[in-house]
Protein backbone atom coordinates (compact mmCIF):
# COMPACT_ATOMS: atom_id res chain seq x y z
CA UNK A 1 0.00 0.00 0.00
CA UNK A 2 1.55 3.25 -1.15
CA UNK A 3 0.85 6.00 1.35
CA UNK A 4 3.07 8.69 -0.15
CA UNK A 5 1.16 11.48 -1.77
CA UNK A 6 1.12 15.25 -2.14
CA UNK A 7 -0.24 17.59 0.48
CA UNK A 8 -2.92 18.83 -1.91
CA UNK A 9 -4.08 15.28 -2.63
CA UNK A 10 -4.01 14.24 1.03
CA UNK A 11 -6.06 17.15 2.36
CA UNK A 12 -8.93 16.24 0.01
CA UNK A 13 -9.88 13.88 2.83
CA UNK A 14 -11.10 16.89 4.81
CA UNK A 15 -14.81 17.45 4.15
CA UNK A 16 -17.27 20.18 5.12
CA UNK A 17 -18.27 19.86 8.75
CA UNK A 18 -15.39 17.58 9.70
CA UNK A 19 -13.61 17.50 13.01
CA UNK A 20 -9.92 18.01 12.27
CA UNK A 21 -7.26 17.09 14.83
CA UNK A 22 -4.11 19.17 14.39
CA UNK A 23 -0.92 18.16 16.19
CA UNK A 24 1.68 20.50 17.60
CA UNK A 25 2.45 22.59 20.63
CA UNK A 26 2.86 26.17 19.43
CA UNK A 27 5.20 25.65 16.44
CA UNK A 28 6.83 22.41 17.68
CA UNK A 29 5.39 19.54 15.69
CA UNK A 30 2.90 21.77 13.91
CA UNK A 31 2.00 20.24 10.51
CA UNK A 32 2.37 23.47 8.57
CA UNK A 33 2.73 21.86 5.14
CA UNK A 34 -0.65 20.17 5.52
CA UNK A 35 -2.35 23.23 6.99
CA UNK A 36 -0.97 25.33 4.12
CA UNK A 37 -2.45 22.86 1.64
CA UNK A 38 -5.77 23.08 3.46
CA UNK A 39 -5.50 26.86 3.18
CA UNK A 40 -4.62 26.98 -0.50
CA UNK A 41 -6.12 23.91 -2.16
CA UNK A 42 -9.17 22.89 -0.11
CA UNK A 43 -12.50 24.60 0.35
CA UNK A 44 -13.67 22.45 3.27
CA UNK A 45 -15.55 24.64 5.72
CA UNK A 46 -17.60 24.50 8.93
CA UNK A 47 -14.62 22.75 10.44
CA UNK A 48 -14.16 21.90 14.09
CA UNK A 49 -10.47 22.18 14.86
CA UNK A 50 -8.97 20.33 17.81
CA UNK A 51 -5.57 21.77 18.70
CA UNK A 52 -3.73 22.54 21.91
CA UNK A 53 -3.24 26.17 20.94
CA UNK A 54 -4.39 26.68 17.30
CA UNK A 55 -0.87 27.82 16.47
CA UNK A 56 0.67 31.25 16.60
CA UNK A 57 0.44 34.41 14.55
CA UNK A 58 3.07 32.84 12.27
CA UNK A 59 1.05 29.67 11.64
CA UNK A 60 -1.04 28.80 8.63
CA UNK A 61 -4.01 27.91 10.87
CA UNK A 62 -4.65 31.57 11.63
CA UNK A 63 -4.97 32.13 7.85
CA UNK A 64 -7.48 29.28 7.52
CA UNK A 65 -9.44 30.86 10.36
CA UNK A 66 -9.34 34.24 8.62
CA UNK A 67 -11.08 32.55 5.68
CA UNK A 68 -13.99 31.86 8.03
CA UNK A 69 -13.78 28.10 7.60
CA UNK A 70 -13.37 27.18 11.26
CA UNK A 71 -16.66 27.18 13.15
CA UNK A 72 -15.51 25.56 16.38
CA UNK A 73 -12.29 25.08 18.30
CA UNK A 74 -11.44 22.65 21.07
CA UNK A 75 -8.19 23.72 22.69
CA UNK A 76 -6.38 24.55 25.91
CA UNK A 77 -4.13 27.58 25.51
CA UNK A 78 -5.23 30.06 22.86
CA UNK A 79 -3.26 33.14 23.88
CA UNK A 80 -0.89 32.65 20.94
CA UNK A 81 -3.63 32.94 18.28
CA UNK A 82 -5.66 36.17 18.48
CA UNK A 83 -8.21 34.82 15.95
CA UNK A 84 -9.23 32.08 18.37
CA UNK A 85 -9.44 34.62 21.18
CA UNK A 86 -11.73 36.73 18.98
CA UNK A 87 -13.92 33.69 18.18
CA UNK A 88 -14.41 33.15 21.91
CA UNK A 89 -15.41 36.81 22.38
CA UNK A 90 -17.82 36.74 19.41
CA UNK A 91 -19.46 33.43 20.36
CA UNK A 92 -18.65 31.76 23.66
CA UNK A 93 -19.94 28.42 22.35
CA UNK A 94 -17.52 28.37 19.44
CA UNK A 95 -14.43 27.72 21.57
CA UNK A 96 -14.29 24.97 24.17
CA UNK A 97 -11.31 25.14 26.51
CA UNK A 98 -10.00 22.19 28.47
CA UNK A 99 -7.16 21.78 30.95
CA UNK A 100 -4.25 20.68 28.78
CA UNK A 101 -3.93 17.24 30.34
CA UNK A 102 -7.66 16.68 30.03
CA UNK A 103 -7.51 17.52 26.32
CA UNK A 104 -4.57 15.15 25.84
CA UNK A 105 -6.28 12.33 27.72
CA UNK A 106 -9.57 12.81 25.82
CA UNK A 107 -7.67 12.30 22.57
CA UNK A 108 -5.66 9.39 23.96
CA UNK A 109 -8.90 7.70 25.00
CA UNK A 110 -10.42 8.43 21.59
CA UNK A 111 -7.69 6.38 19.99
CA UNK A 112 -7.65 3.65 22.61
CA UNK A 113 -11.27 2.57 22.68
CA UNK A 114 -12.02 4.20 26.04
CA UNK A 115 -15.34 6.08 26.26
CA UNK A 116 -14.24 8.51 28.94
CA UNK A 117 -12.45 8.95 32.23
CA UNK A 118 -12.80 10.58 35.63
CA UNK A 119 -10.28 13.30 36.41
CA UNK A 120 -9.83 15.51 39.49
CA UNK A 121 -8.70 18.41 37.30
CA UNK A 122 -11.29 21.17 36.97
CA UNK A 123 -13.34 20.27 40.06
CA UNK A 124 -14.71 23.46 41.61
CA UNK A 125 -14.05 25.53 38.47
CA UNK A 126 -16.06 26.51 35.38
CA UNK A 127 -14.74 23.33 33.76
CA UNK A 128 -17.19 21.23 35.74
CA UNK A 129 -20.27 22.91 34.22
CA UNK A 130 -22.55 20.28 32.71
CA UNK A 131 -20.29 17.36 33.57
CA UNK A 132 -21.03 14.39 35.80
CA UNK A 133 -19.19 14.66 39.14
CA UNK A 134 -18.50 11.51 41.06
CA UNK A 135 -16.72 10.77 44.32
CA UNK A 136 -14.16 7.98 44.56
CA UNK A 137 -12.58 7.30 47.96
CA UNK A 138 -13.68 10.68 49.23
CA UNK A 139 -12.28 12.72 46.34
CA UNK A 140 -14.32 14.38 43.58
CA UNK A 141 -13.73 13.70 39.90
CA UNK A 142 -15.30 14.92 36.65
CA UNK A 143 -16.35 12.69 33.79
CA UNK A 144 -14.59 13.68 30.57
CA UNK A 145 -15.56 11.92 27.36
CA UNK A 146 -13.18 10.72 24.68
CA UNK A 147 -12.56 12.91 21.63
CA UNK A 148 -12.01 11.70 18.06
CA UNK A 149 -11.64 13.35 14.67
CA UNK A 150 -12.59 12.61 11.10
CA UNK A 151 -9.10 13.58 9.95
CA UNK A 152 -5.82 14.19 11.79
CA UNK A 153 -2.80 16.22 10.62
CA UNK A 154 0.47 15.33 12.36
CA UNK A 155 4.14 16.05 11.79
CA UNK A 156 7.03 13.62 12.13
CA UNK A 157 10.74 14.22 12.02
CA UNK A 158 11.41 10.99 10.09
CA UNK A 159 8.87 8.55 8.62
CA UNK A 160 9.40 5.38 6.65
CA UNK A 161 7.25 4.58 3.65
CA UNK A 162 5.08 2.24 5.74
CA UNK A 163 4.16 5.26 7.87
CA UNK A 164 6.20 4.52 10.97
CA UNK A 165 6.94 7.91 12.46
CA UNK A 166 9.74 9.20 14.66
CA UNK A 167 8.84 12.47 16.37
CA UNK A 168 11.94 14.08 17.79
CA UNK A 169 12.30 16.04 21.04
CA UNK A 170 9.31 18.02 22.19
CA UNK A 171 7.40 17.56 18.92
CA UNK A 172 5.52 14.45 20.07
CA UNK A 173 3.09 16.43 22.23
CA UNK A 174 -0.43 16.11 20.76
CA UNK A 175 0.40 14.69 17.33
CA UNK A 176 1.48 11.34 18.74
CA UNK A 177 -1.99 11.01 20.33
CA UNK A 178 -4.03 12.44 17.47
CA UNK A 179 -2.54 9.99 14.98
CA UNK A 180 -4.38 7.26 16.90
CA UNK A 181 -7.69 9.08 17.23
CA UNK A 182 -8.97 9.93 13.74
CA UNK A 183 -10.60 7.99 10.91
CA UNK A 184 -8.06 9.26 8.40
CA UNK A 185 -4.57 10.27 9.46
CA UNK A 186 -2.16 12.32 7.38
CA UNK A 187 1.45 12.61 8.50
CA UNK A 188 3.95 15.00 7.03
CA UNK A 189 7.60 14.19 7.64
CA UNK A 190 10.75 16.25 7.32
CA UNK A 191 12.49 13.16 6.00
CA UNK A 192 10.96 10.07 4.37
CA UNK A 193 13.06 6.89 4.27
CA UNK A 194 12.70 3.37 2.91
CA UNK A 195 11.01 0.71 5.02
CA UNK A 196 13.68 -0.79 7.27
CA UNK A 197 15.74 2.37 7.51
CA UNK A 198 13.92 3.74 10.56
CA UNK A 199 15.02 1.88 13.68
CA UNK A 200 11.97 0.04 15.04
CA UNK A 201 13.05 1.04 18.56
CA UNK A 202 12.56 4.71 17.68
CA UNK A 203 9.01 4.53 16.34
CA UNK A 204 6.75 7.09 18.05
CA UNK A 205 3.69 6.21 15.93
CA UNK A 206 3.39 2.73 14.42
CA UNK A 207 2.79 2.90 10.67
CA UNK A 208 -0.62 1.22 10.81
CA UNK A 209 -2.10 4.48 12.11
CA UNK A 210 -0.96 6.52 9.13
CA UNK A 211 -3.14 6.64 5.97
CA UNK A 212 -1.22 9.19 3.93
CA UNK A 213 2.35 10.44 4.08
CA UNK A 214 3.53 13.78 2.73
CA UNK A 215 6.98 15.35 2.47
CA UNK A 216 7.21 18.45 4.71
CA UNK A 217 8.13 21.63 2.96
CA UNK A 218 9.70 24.70 4.41
CA UNK A 219 6.49 26.69 4.78
Amino acid at each position, binding site marked *: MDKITTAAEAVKAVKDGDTLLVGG*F*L*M*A*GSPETLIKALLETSSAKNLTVVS*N*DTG*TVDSNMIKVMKQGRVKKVH*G*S*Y*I*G*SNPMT*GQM*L*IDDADSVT*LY*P*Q*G*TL*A*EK*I*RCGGAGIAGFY*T*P*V*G*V*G*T*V*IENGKEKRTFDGKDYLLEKALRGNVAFVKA*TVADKFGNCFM*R*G*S*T*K*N*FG*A*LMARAADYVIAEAKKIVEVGELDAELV*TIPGIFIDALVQSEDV
Partner: protein
Amino acid sequence: MDAKNFIAKRVARELKDGDVVNLGIGLPTLIANYVPEGVSITLQAEHGILGAGPAAKEGEEDPEIINAGGFPITVLPGASFFDSATSFGIIRGGHVDVTVLGALQVDEKGNLANWMVPGKRVPGMGGAMDLVVGARKVIVAMEHTAKGSHKILDTCTFPLTAVGVVNQIITEMGVMEITEDGIKLTEIAQGLTVEDVQSATGAKLIIADNLAVMES
Protein backbone atom coordinates in the same frame (compact mmCIF):
# COMPACT_ATOMS: atom_id res chain seq x y z
CA MET B 1 18.47 42.33 43.38
CA ASP B 2 15.00 43.24 42.09
CA ALA B 3 11.80 41.89 43.65
CA LYS B 4 11.32 39.13 41.10
CA ASN B 5 14.82 37.74 41.50
CA PHE B 6 14.60 38.08 45.31
CA ILE B 7 11.38 36.01 45.26
CA ALA B 8 12.83 33.47 42.84
CA LYS B 9 15.95 33.00 44.95
CA ARG B 10 13.89 32.41 48.10
CA VAL B 11 11.62 29.92 46.31
CA ALA B 12 14.68 28.02 45.11
CA ARG B 13 15.57 27.28 48.74
CA GLU B 14 12.33 25.28 49.05
CA LEU B 15 13.58 22.76 46.49
CA LYS B 16 15.07 19.51 47.72
CA ASP B 17 17.68 17.30 46.14
CA GLY B 18 15.98 14.93 43.71
CA ASP B 19 12.77 16.94 43.30
CA VAL B 20 10.85 16.89 40.03
CA VAL B 21 9.84 20.52 39.49
CA ASN B 22 7.60 22.34 37.05
CA LEU B 23 8.15 26.09 36.79
CA GLY B 24 5.48 28.32 35.31
CA ILE B 25 6.10 31.01 32.73
CA GLY B 26 7.41 34.40 33.90
CA LEU B 27 8.87 34.90 37.38
CA PRO B 28 8.98 31.15 38.19
CA THR B 29 11.39 30.48 35.31
CA LEU B 30 13.99 32.62 37.16
CA ILE B 31 14.06 30.04 39.97
CA ALA B 32 16.20 27.70 37.88
CA ASN B 33 19.02 30.27 38.15
CA TYR B 34 19.11 30.01 41.95
CA VAL B 35 18.96 26.30 42.76
CA PRO B 36 21.31 25.94 45.78
CA GLU B 37 24.64 24.18 45.58
CA GLY B 38 24.32 20.47 46.22
CA VAL B 39 20.65 20.35 45.20
CA SER B 40 19.95 18.58 41.94
CA ILE B 41 16.43 18.88 40.52
CA THR B 42 14.75 17.59 37.37
CA LEU B 43 12.77 20.24 35.53
CA GLN B 44 9.60 19.10 33.81
CA ALA B 45 8.06 20.91 30.84
CA GLU B 46 4.41 19.95 30.55
CA HIS B 47 4.35 19.42 26.79
CA GLY B 48 6.77 16.50 27.18
CA ILE B 49 10.23 16.96 28.69
CA LEU B 50 11.92 15.81 31.87
CA GLY B 51 15.41 17.20 32.32
CA ALA B 52 14.86 20.58 30.67
CA GLY B 53 17.96 22.78 30.66
CA PRO B 54 18.79 26.44 30.03
CA ALA B 55 17.73 28.45 26.99
CA ALA B 56 19.51 27.54 23.75
CA LYS B 57 22.41 29.80 22.81
CA GLU B 58 21.92 32.10 19.87
CA GLY B 59 22.65 30.19 16.68
CA GLU B 60 22.11 26.84 18.40
CA GLU B 61 18.29 26.97 18.60
CA ASP B 62 16.53 23.72 17.74
CA PRO B 63 12.86 24.23 16.78
CA GLU B 64 12.09 20.67 17.89
CA ILE B 65 13.25 21.33 21.47
CA ILE B 66 11.27 24.14 23.04
CA ASN B 67 9.97 25.04 26.48
CA ALA B 68 6.31 25.43 27.39
CA GLY B 69 6.52 29.07 26.36
CA GLY B 70 7.59 28.08 22.86
CA PHE B 71 11.23 29.20 23.21
CA PRO B 72 14.16 26.99 22.17
CA ILE B 73 15.88 25.38 25.13
CA THR B 74 18.46 22.70 25.77
CA VAL B 75 18.11 19.46 27.68
CA LEU B 76 20.49 18.07 30.26
CA PRO B 77 22.15 14.64 30.28
CA GLY B 78 19.53 12.15 31.48
CA ALA B 79 16.62 14.02 29.91
CA SER B 80 13.65 12.29 28.30
CA PHE B 81 10.92 13.26 25.83
CA PHE B 82 7.34 11.98 25.69
CA ASP B 83 3.87 12.86 24.43
CA SER B 84 1.37 15.12 26.21
CA ALA B 85 -0.76 12.28 27.62
CA THR B 86 2.29 10.74 29.28
CA SER B 87 3.39 14.17 30.48
CA PHE B 88 0.07 14.97 32.10
CA GLY B 89 -0.03 11.46 33.53
CA ILE B 90 3.23 12.39 35.27
CA ILE B 91 1.58 15.57 36.53
CA ARG B 92 -1.86 14.22 37.45
CA GLY B 93 -0.37 11.04 38.86
CA GLY B 94 1.52 12.89 41.59
CA HIS B 95 5.00 12.40 40.15
CA VAL B 96 5.84 16.11 40.15
CA ASP B 97 7.08 17.14 43.60
CA VAL B 98 6.78 20.90 43.30
CA THR B 99 5.09 23.29 40.91
CA VAL B 100 5.66 27.03 41.13
CA LEU B 101 3.24 29.41 39.43
CA GLY B 102 2.15 33.00 39.51
CA ALA B 103 -1.34 34.02 40.58
CA LEU B 104 -3.89 36.70 39.90
CA GLN B 105 -5.46 35.87 43.26
CA VAL B 106 -4.93 33.31 45.99
CA ASP B 107 -7.04 32.94 49.11
CA GLU B 108 -6.90 31.62 52.66
CA LYS B 109 -8.52 28.32 51.66
CA GLY B 110 -5.68 27.66 49.22
CA ASN B 111 -7.90 28.47 46.25
CA LEU B 112 -6.03 29.76 43.22
CA ALA B 113 -7.18 32.04 40.39
CA ASN B 114 -4.57 32.50 37.69
CA TRP B 115 -6.12 31.88 34.30
CA MET B 116 -8.69 34.53 33.50
CA VAL B 117 -9.71 38.04 34.40
CA PRO B 118 -13.44 38.57 33.86
CA GLY B 119 -14.04 40.91 30.93
CA LYS B 120 -10.55 40.48 29.50
CA ARG B 121 -9.42 38.33 26.60
CA VAL B 122 -9.18 34.71 27.74
CA PRO B 123 -5.89 32.97 26.90
CA GLY B 124 -7.03 29.58 28.18
CA MET B 125 -5.84 27.64 31.18
CA GLY B 126 -3.18 25.57 29.43
CA GLY B 127 -1.65 23.13 31.90
CA ALA B 128 -2.18 25.22 35.05
CA MET B 129 -5.25 23.37 36.33
CA ASP B 130 -3.57 19.99 35.88
CA LEU B 131 -0.33 21.14 37.52
CA VAL B 132 -1.84 22.54 40.70
CA VAL B 133 -4.14 19.56 41.19
CA GLY B 134 -1.45 17.00 40.46
CA ALA B 135 1.76 18.35 41.99
CA ARG B 136 2.56 17.32 45.56
CA LYS B 137 3.44 20.87 46.60
CA VAL B 138 2.11 24.06 45.04
CA ILE B 139 4.02 27.29 45.60
CA VAL B 140 2.62 30.60 44.41
CA ALA B 141 5.49 32.97 43.62
CA MET B 142 4.41 36.51 42.85
CA GLU B 143 4.64 40.16 43.80
CA HIS B 144 2.54 40.67 46.91
CA THR B 145 0.07 43.10 45.33
CA ALA B 146 -0.89 44.17 41.83
CA LYS B 147 0.28 47.79 41.97
CA GLY B 148 -1.18 48.07 45.45
CA SER B 149 -4.39 46.12 44.94
CA HIS B 150 -4.70 42.94 46.98
CA LYS B 151 -3.98 39.57 45.43
CA ILE B 152 -3.91 37.56 48.66
CA LEU B 153 -7.53 37.49 49.79
CA ASP B 154 -9.99 35.80 52.13
CA THR B 155 -11.93 34.64 49.06
CA CYS B 156 -10.90 34.72 45.39
CA THR B 157 -13.31 36.67 43.19
CA PHE B 158 -11.89 35.67 39.79
CA PRO B 159 -12.73 32.29 38.20
CA LEU B 160 -10.76 29.58 39.97
CA THR B 161 -7.96 27.48 38.59
CA ALA B 162 -8.44 24.96 41.38
CA VAL B 163 -9.85 24.61 44.89
CA GLY B 164 -7.72 24.20 48.01
CA VAL B 165 -4.44 23.42 46.25
CA VAL B 166 -1.95 26.11 47.29
CA ASN B 167 0.52 25.17 50.05
CA GLN B 168 2.77 28.20 50.18
CA ILE B 169 2.93 31.80 48.95
CA ILE B 170 6.26 33.56 48.51
CA THR B 171 6.36 37.28 47.74
CA GLU B 172 8.85 40.12 48.14
CA MET B 173 7.21 40.85 51.51
CA GLY B 174 7.30 37.43 53.07
CA VAL B 175 6.70 33.71 53.12
CA MET B 176 3.22 32.41 53.94
CA GLU B 177 1.79 28.96 54.44
CA ILE B 178 -1.81 27.97 53.89
CA THR B 179 -2.98 26.25 57.06
CA GLU B 180 -6.37 24.91 58.12
CA ASP B 181 -6.89 28.09 60.12
CA GLY B 182 -5.82 30.50 57.38
CA ILE B 183 -2.70 32.14 55.99
CA LYS B 184 0.28 31.98 58.35
CA LEU B 185 3.15 34.43 57.89
CA THR B 186 6.33 32.49 58.64
CA GLU B 187 8.98 34.87 57.30
CA ILE B 188 8.98 38.61 56.79
CA ALA B 189 11.27 40.67 54.58
CA GLN B 190 13.95 42.84 56.22
CA GLY B 191 12.72 46.27 57.20
CA LEU B 192 8.99 45.48 57.09
CA THR B 193 6.60 45.30 60.01
CA VAL B 194 3.82 42.75 60.38
CA GLU B 195 1.41 45.66 59.90
CA ASP B 196 3.02 46.49 56.54
CA VAL B 197 2.39 42.95 55.30
CA GLN B 198 -1.10 42.82 56.79
CA SER B 199 -2.15 46.06 55.10
CA ALA B 200 -0.96 44.69 51.74
CA THR B 201 -3.01 41.53 52.28
CA GLY B 202 -6.76 41.05 51.85
CA ALA B 203 -7.00 38.24 54.41
CA LYS B 204 -6.31 38.19 58.15
CA LEU B 205 -2.79 36.86 58.62
CA ILE B 206 -1.84 34.45 61.35
CA ILE B 207 1.63 35.36 62.59
CA ALA B 208 3.95 32.45 63.28
CA ASP B 209 5.32 32.33 66.84
CA ASN B 210 8.81 31.95 65.43
CA LEU B 211 8.45 34.56 62.66
CA ALA B 212 11.80 34.73 60.88
CA VAL B 213 13.45 37.31 58.67
CA MET B 214 13.10 36.36 55.01
CA GLU B 215 16.42 35.84 53.32
CA SER B 216 16.81 35.30 49.63
